[in-house]
């Protein structure tokens, strides 16, 4: 038995514990050390998992852990996205007096949960990874104790999340009953055998898909998304909206394709319904929002619809398109929410659409960054959002589901409206207040890098696309 494939997880866990202890001995003015340590941990972790990209697929620890190229790529992107999240979060937390080590420790544990989820090879590990992630997120949402909205959001998130976990667990238990194993490989083998377990498997699949849809926030299991995104402190919203989507993608891959690949026909129909509903509801309701956090929440739902399109195509092309979508969406999401943090200051949340009015007059550079991000979310070339959507649509068309592609395109055109509206507010309206923008240096760097990455990946999408293809083949 070897522990080498677990290097990233073990490193992250040890560092999280070290930070937890170090933080206890720090005085408030030196709290930034915890932050720096957390960032170093994430970067080093990203390096470790990147170095595993070329490794052979390996199942260790009695079939509970798998190390394959897909896991390596997704882990690297989760860790890097979280670096961005933490960079955006620092000044916001300091201004609101919640700059505490626990924020970063809980964040690291959430990341650990995602990593566990990404390289799970047993239904048990999937569930435990998911719980680790969710529990850390619930706590993070409630982190701003004095905010009633945050507590309410945490409560909703917790109750609905627990319900979803229950559904998932129920599905998993039925699957275990039908196949007699928790190991993903053995489950897949048992399903491939002809037997009379059909009805149990379909019910199990139903519950698992419902659980997944809850975690993704796909319609009709999306009720928690706007409330939680709105109520949570913005750095936490940023976190929830980005990296966990990558982890959710990995979870869907492990559960649906690797374990339940034999039931492709059944889950394709379910995902189709979820995808179409998400595209419709997400894009249409987003138009009516006046709060940007809520608007971005509905936009997330719409993006999840796209992500599901790639999955339901059921081909390697579709999966890699979906993976590309998940990674690039996480990049766009941290930028979008990051801009909300950037415009906020102590005692003021810039979460109304009107707060974006005349941003160009106040700071042309950040207005430009926001322009890139919004165009990318809308899917306008030459930003990365365009290629992500294109790849997904191609995959869908190649499996002869042209009508689905048409629906997707139609609703993303509707969706473009509310992204462009922000652009209009920024460039053509007069600013409401004249408070100067005070932006910390790490935030400036993060935002600029973020925007430019979206643009660069849009102009040269080939590299990431090729990696996504390579890890799946």
């Amino acid at each position: 038995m070897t522990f080498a494939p677990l290097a990233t997880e073990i490193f992250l866990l040890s560092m999280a514990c070290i930070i937890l202890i170090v933080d206890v001995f720090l005085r408030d003015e030196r709290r930034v050390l915890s932050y720096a340590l957390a960032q170093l941990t994430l970067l080093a972790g990203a390096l470790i998992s990147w170095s595993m990209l070329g490794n052979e697929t390996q199942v260790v620890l009695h079939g509970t852990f798998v190390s394959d190229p897909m896991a390596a790529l997704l882990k690297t992107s989760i860790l890097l996205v979280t670096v961005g999240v933490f960079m955006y979060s620092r000044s916001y937390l300091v201004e609101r007096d919640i700059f505490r080590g626990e924020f970063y420790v809980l964040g690291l544990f959430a990341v650990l949960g995602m990593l566990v989820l990404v390289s799970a090879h047993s239904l048990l590990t999937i569930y435990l990874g998911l719980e680790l992630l969710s529990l850390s997120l619930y706590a993070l949402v409630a982190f701003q104790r004095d905010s009633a909205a945050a507590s309410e959001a945490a409560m909703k998130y917790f109750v609905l999340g627990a319900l979803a976990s229950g559904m998932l667990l129920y599905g998993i238990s039925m699957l275990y009953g039908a196949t007699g194993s928790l190991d993903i490989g053995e489950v897949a083998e048992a399903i491939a055998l002809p037997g009379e377990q059909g009805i149990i498997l379909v019910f199990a699949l139903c519950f698992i898909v419902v659980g997944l849809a809850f975690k993704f926030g796909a319609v009709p299991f999306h009720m928690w998304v706007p409330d939680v995104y709105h109520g949570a402190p913005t750095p936490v919203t940023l976190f929830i909206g980005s990296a966990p989507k990558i982890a959710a993608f990995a979870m869907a891959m492990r559960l649906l394709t690797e374990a339940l690949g034999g039931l492709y026909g059944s889950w394709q129909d379910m995902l189709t319904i979820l995808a179409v509903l998400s595209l419709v509801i997400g894009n249409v309701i987003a138009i009516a929002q006046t709060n940007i956090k809520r608007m971005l929440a509905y936009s997330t739902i719409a993006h999840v619809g796209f992500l599901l399109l790639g999955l339901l195509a059921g081909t390697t092309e579709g999966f890699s398109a979906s993976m590309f979508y998940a990674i690039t969406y996480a990049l766009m999401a941290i930028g979008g929410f990051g801009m909300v943090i950037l415009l906020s200051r102590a005692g003021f949340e810039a979460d109304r659409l009107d707060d974006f009015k005349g941003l160009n007059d106040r700071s042309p550079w950040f207005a430009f960054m926001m322009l890139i991000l919004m165009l990318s979310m809308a899917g306008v070339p030459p930003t990365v959002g365009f290629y992500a959507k294109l790849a997904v649509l191609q995959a869908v068309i190649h499996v002869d589901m042209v009508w689905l592609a048409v629906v997707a395109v139609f609703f993303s055109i509707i969706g473009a409206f509310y992204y462009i509206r922000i652009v209009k507010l920024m460039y053509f309206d007069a600013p409401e207040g004249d408070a100067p923008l005070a932006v910390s240096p790490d935030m400036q760097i993060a935002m600029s890098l973020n925007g430019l990455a979206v643009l660069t990946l849009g102009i040269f999408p080939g590299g990431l696309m090729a990696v996504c293809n390579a890890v799946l083949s």
Partner: protein
Amino acid sequence: MGFERFVFYVFAVILVYAAARVITVRNPVHAVLHLVLAFFTCAGLWLLLEAEFLAITLVLVYVGAVMVLFLFVVMMLDINVSPLREGFVKYLPMGFVVALLIFAEMFMVLGVKNFGAQAVAIPERHGADYSNTREIGNVLYTDYVYPFEIASVILLVAIIAAIALTMRRRPDTRSQDPVAQVAVRREDRVRLVKMKTEEKSG
């Protein structure tokens, strides 16, 4: 066999009764006590299944620790149940339909056909020297060591979250600092003033 079946039915009946009372009694403290009873009889059933380690742990953890805290909290709260019951009748038909659907589904999936005695072999009985505790220990630290460790991390997160969310100094609450109280010296409290005796007036 006969006696075992008798024990099973005794425990099962008490369990079902206690579980039903948990959701039907009006007094929350009674509900918690019935839940304790349910856990306890459940542990009895697990003993019949030769899972003595789990049974004792259930009593130890749930009855001995979790429910004590729960009872503690419920006793402190003055819960008025009647507002919680408003709308009970209104939602009853809908709830009934959902319950029926779930029952039908469970019957179809978990029924005798799929998980009955024909489909699943009856587990072998173990002798008196069989140690369930040892068996659990063996698989927990070999086959399931990774999930076991993740579970421990989850518990760690729960501790961190609980402390992060509850431990804070609220400016508006008054609390005593026993250390400061004990460390008080006479000089802090009493000031001895030297002064001349005053003349009696008048």
